[in-house]
């Protein structure tokens, strides 16, 4: 929107900092610099009660690094990821992102159009649940982002989608079936395939392995390792602390110390 509606109660800051000035203040070399990030939900149905989700979170992520977020349930680990993705509007703080083509920008305040462009070309998000699309089969669901974002033809995209689904152990007979009817674990693997298929340079992982068995987790971990070899940077939340320690380079604790 060019003009903010007068009644908008959004907490989104209006100023869009010039790319250059931001670049100077971000730590040299880091891909993401998160400073004093806070998010408070305001629930109007409950008389405007305020629920603080995260408060003054700061950390950095280097290019190619895999940073895990840990903390007790409800500490706001997912909230951090969703603020980076702009699915949540941060209440205060900054998220400096060194983009591939636009210099360093603050994801908290950069224009919506820029965010959409980053989501199309640079930043991927793997949620816990698959969002199915009516009448689209598993293979086509995974092929879609490959085709649209990497500009390859339908046949190539479908081949790549098939090999990705193979790797994740989805039986071939399910390729053209609608994922709405799949088991939770199968849906989650299709979801991962769709989210990483176009190889985003920054990948946000929100409990992507929560309902997978051990073999599937291993396949996913191997896939993540390959994405990293190709240069991807990752920030993730995992329900299993052992897995978190094993696959990440570094763990950042969110919320109060135990």
């Amino acid at each position: 929107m060019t003009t903010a509606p007068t009644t908008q109660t959004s907490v989104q800051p209006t100023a869009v900092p010039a790319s250059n000035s931001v670049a100077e203040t971000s730590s040299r070399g880091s891909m993401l610099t998160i400073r004093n990030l806070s998010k408070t939900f305001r629930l109007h149905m409950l008389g405007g009660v305020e629920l603080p989700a995260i408060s003054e979170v700061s950390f950095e992520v280097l290019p190619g690094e895999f940073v895990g977020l840990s903390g007790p349930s409800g500490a706001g680990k997912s909230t951090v990821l969703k603020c980076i993705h702009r699915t949540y509007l941060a209440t205060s703080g900054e998220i400096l992102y060194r983009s591939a083509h636009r210099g360093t920008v603050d994801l908290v305040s950069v224009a919506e159009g820029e965010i959409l462009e980053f989501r199309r070309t640079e930043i991927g998000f793997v949620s816990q649940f698959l969002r199915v699309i009516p009448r689209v089969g598993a293979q086509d669901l995974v092929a879609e982002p490959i085709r649209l974002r990497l500009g390859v033809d339908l046949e190539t995209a479908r081949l790549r989608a098939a090999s990705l689904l193979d790797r994740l152990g989805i039986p071939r007979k399910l390729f053209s079936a609608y994922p709405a009817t799949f088991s939770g674990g199968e849906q989650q693997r299709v979801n991962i395939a769709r989210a990483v298929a176009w190889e985003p340079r920054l990948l946000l992982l929100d409990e992507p392995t929560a309902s997978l068995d051990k073999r599937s987790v291993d396949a996913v971990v191997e896939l993540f390792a390959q994405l990293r070899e190709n240069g991807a940077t990752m920030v993730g939340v995992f329900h299993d602390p052992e897995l978190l320690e094993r696959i990440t380079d570094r763990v950042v604790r969110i919320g109060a110390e135990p």
Partner: protein
Amino acid sequence: MEALLRAHGITRRYGPGCALCLDSTGADAGTNRCPTCGSVWACRDVSLELRAEEALGIVGESGSGKSTLVKLLHFDDPATSGYLELARLRQLEGIGGIYADGCDWSRDLFSMDRYRQRRVRDASMGIVYQHPHLGLRMGVSSGGNVAERLLSAGWRSIGAMRQRASHLLERTEIPLSRMDEPPRNFSGGMQQRVQIAKALSGDPPILLLDEVSTGLDLSVQARVLDMIRTLREELRLSMVVVSHDLGVIHLLCQRTMVMKNGQVVESGLTDQILQDPQHGYTQLLVASQLQ
């Protein structure tokens, strides 16, 4: 993506208006009707921007002004105030007086004469209404419905029009054997597909969808939405999608505006509107959704 359409301060008032109107209508007042003079403010000070190949969702309850907004954009109804501009489009180059020399944007289209507005609309927009009888002539053959639109866009060869019509109806999955039947013989889902064929006949860059899948059976709705997704990508359409169904908005739209009592109460990225709604009304809307 480049902006394609921008509108500023669009307002539609039915009635004389009075000094007390502005304070006693709108989202905070909880009504769009002025208790003093009886004027209805169907749309009040709405601004928006539509980018190329983007889908913008407009959600809100009945009476929120979302359908009025689309009708204003389509020149079905004159705006009381506000302006509407289109980026320089090759489809509009032939219409005199639209662009000032060297300008990337058109002059205000709301202040142009009806004739020009109609030509701009036929060349740049297609619309699909919730009620097929608004967009179709129920007694005229389906092919004729599409041809009618082509005629008003300047087509003259009957053979070419018939060919174009059959191509579009095929694309929208209407069996060619039924091309000569009037839409009143068709099911609701088929009627919507004929409307889509008609809306796309002039090859417009902008498609306006007003509750396009409301009232259809789920399987029929899925088919219509799937078709819209495919056509959008193939034809590189920009869309304004009006719906009270958050699922439809989530499926189709990158950005969303929320309207209440004629006003925009909130706008943002669609996933942000759905997962972190800021306004009390949007929070209520999201919390009321069936999972």
